[in-house]
């Protein structure tokens, strides 16, 4: 926890911004898939959670990439460099590399690309990594150059065909799994993408970890407001996205209800 200075805050693509913070060692060394819980100021009452998008240990900076959705992200998008923000983190339990895994496939949908760049940075020297990123349209794509710098391969697809082939990230990833046979999939995207993945055998047959989103309070596991459903025995039980996740095995997550 602490005060972090804004180094830069700039648009990456249509409605997507990158906030670069002067970050302490624990953030610079954070596990991929963990997040920062940001008090954005300006009368916004609760913190807002954002995955770590990338870190630059040399510069001592870490960045989050965020889409402007409502009041909190709107206020954040107007934050000026040198503003000091109250930021908690790194929080949560992120992606983990299965023992002996050599090849990881990253699958991102929309803003889900955000934590995957940090994942790709982390995997450098640890495993080969390929990325499949899906966006609604080319104008929303971001950080592709950075992904290219960190990944063995990058495939960007769009819903409307304005960038790459016209197809979903899930389908593109499914095809890649057949050819590349990764040992693990690290995914981040909307619920619809995860549901589609759960429906496909190829994702069920390998270690597949997904990052969930839920409205949050404390971010540290105490208030029990960020529940998601995870298989337990015959049925399911609530788990905390902030502390038990945000990353869970795809097969254990129960959607809808």
């Amino acid at each position, binding site marked *: *926890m602490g005060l972090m200075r804004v180094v830069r805050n700039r648009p990456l693509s249509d409605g997507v911004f990158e906030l670069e913070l002067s970050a302490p060692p624990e953030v610079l060394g954070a596990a991929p898939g963990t997040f920062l819980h940001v*008090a954005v100021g300006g009368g*916004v*009452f*609760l*913190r807002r959670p954002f995955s770590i998008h990338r870190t630059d240990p040399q510069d001592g900076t870490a960045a989050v990439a965020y889409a402007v959705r409502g009041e*909190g992200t709107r206020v954040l998008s107007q934050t000026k460099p040198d503003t000091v923000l*109250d930021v*908690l983190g790194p929080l949560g339990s992120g992606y983990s590399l299965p023992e002996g895994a050599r090849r990881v496939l990253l699958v991102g949908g929309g803003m889900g690309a955000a934590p995957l760049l940090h994942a790709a940075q982390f995997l450098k020297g640890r495993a080969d990594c390929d990325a499949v990123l899906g966006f609604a349209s080319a104008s929303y794509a971001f950080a592709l150059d950075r992904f290219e710098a960190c990944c063995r391969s990058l495939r960007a697809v769009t819903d409307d065909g304005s960038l790459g082939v016209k197809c979903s990230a899930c389908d593109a990833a499914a095809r890649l799994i057949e050819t590349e046979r990764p040992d693990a999939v690290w995914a981040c995207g909307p619920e619809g993408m995860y549901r589609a993945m759960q429906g496909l055998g190829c994702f069920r047959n390998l270690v597949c970890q997904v990052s969930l989103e*839920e*409205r*949050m*309070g*404390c971010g*540290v*596991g*105490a*208030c*029990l*407001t*960020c*529940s*998601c459903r995870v298989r337990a025995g015959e049925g399911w*039980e*609530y788990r905390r996205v902030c*502390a038990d996740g945000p990353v869970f095995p795809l097969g254990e997550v129960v959607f809808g*209800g």
Partner: protein
Amino acid sequence: MVDRPSLAVEVCGVPMKNPCIAASGTFGFGEEYQRYFPLHKLGAICVKGLTLEPRQGNPPPRIAETPSGMLNSVGLQNPGVRAFLRDHLPRLADSGTAVIANIAGNTAEEYCKIAAMLSKSRVDMLELNISCPNVKEGGVAFGTRPESVLEITRRVKTESGGKPLAVKLSPNTSDIGETALAAREGGADAISLINTITGMAVDVKNMRPVLANVTGGLSGPAIRPVALRMVYEAARAVTIPVIGMGGIMSGEDAAAFLLCGARAFMVGTATVVSPTACVHIVAELERYLKEQGIGDVNALVGALKA
């Protein structure tokens, strides 16, 4: 200026090194906060509401931001009183701070059973939660009618085996003084208030309630004026200690509650916003006392010039 004002208080026999208590439901069983500060810095910890059996709570979304506040509809998710006694209390009881067990039942029998189980434990105080707005049965249903407050308090007190019993009152009532009196007549050793006020938020774009449970409990600074008024009224209605809460974010906010008659105060939503809130609030309260030239925090209690 006073050098080092004394912050120690006593609430129905339980000594606390300061009047700041972590409120139920926002501090878990304390475990998550140990990495942020030593728990013995708190006057006491009030644990998440305990039910007889484990409870899943309500479906998500369970939280909504509102102007200067938040709604929650957690619905008493907890591992049950047995798991608490086995897995959590031992460590908590050794943490160097007083422990208050917040208890919630579906029926009077359940409340009594939980109280009986806790009466032989190392908890320092029981807090009878008859004011949870997020559960269908029990909860707030017990807390709005004076007769039922009196009745449930009396029954639980009998089972508490000498542990001091605080009754947590609901703000969803037209006469808080009446409810406070009922709790006292039922044998309460203290009252605590306020629990959250039932509220609702709407996602106008999707034309849906934000919370899956539709309604939730409003907490935070937004409700502080209501909380202060109710603490003021309750403290004038009864002579047993009053523990005040509702939107305390700073040491000065805490001082306002003490001035209105609270013997100690609880901090909930502030901790949801910042894990170290309680520690800052205690430091600010100490500074306030110094600035006001007050040597003992107990001198604030009920000292409002009204």
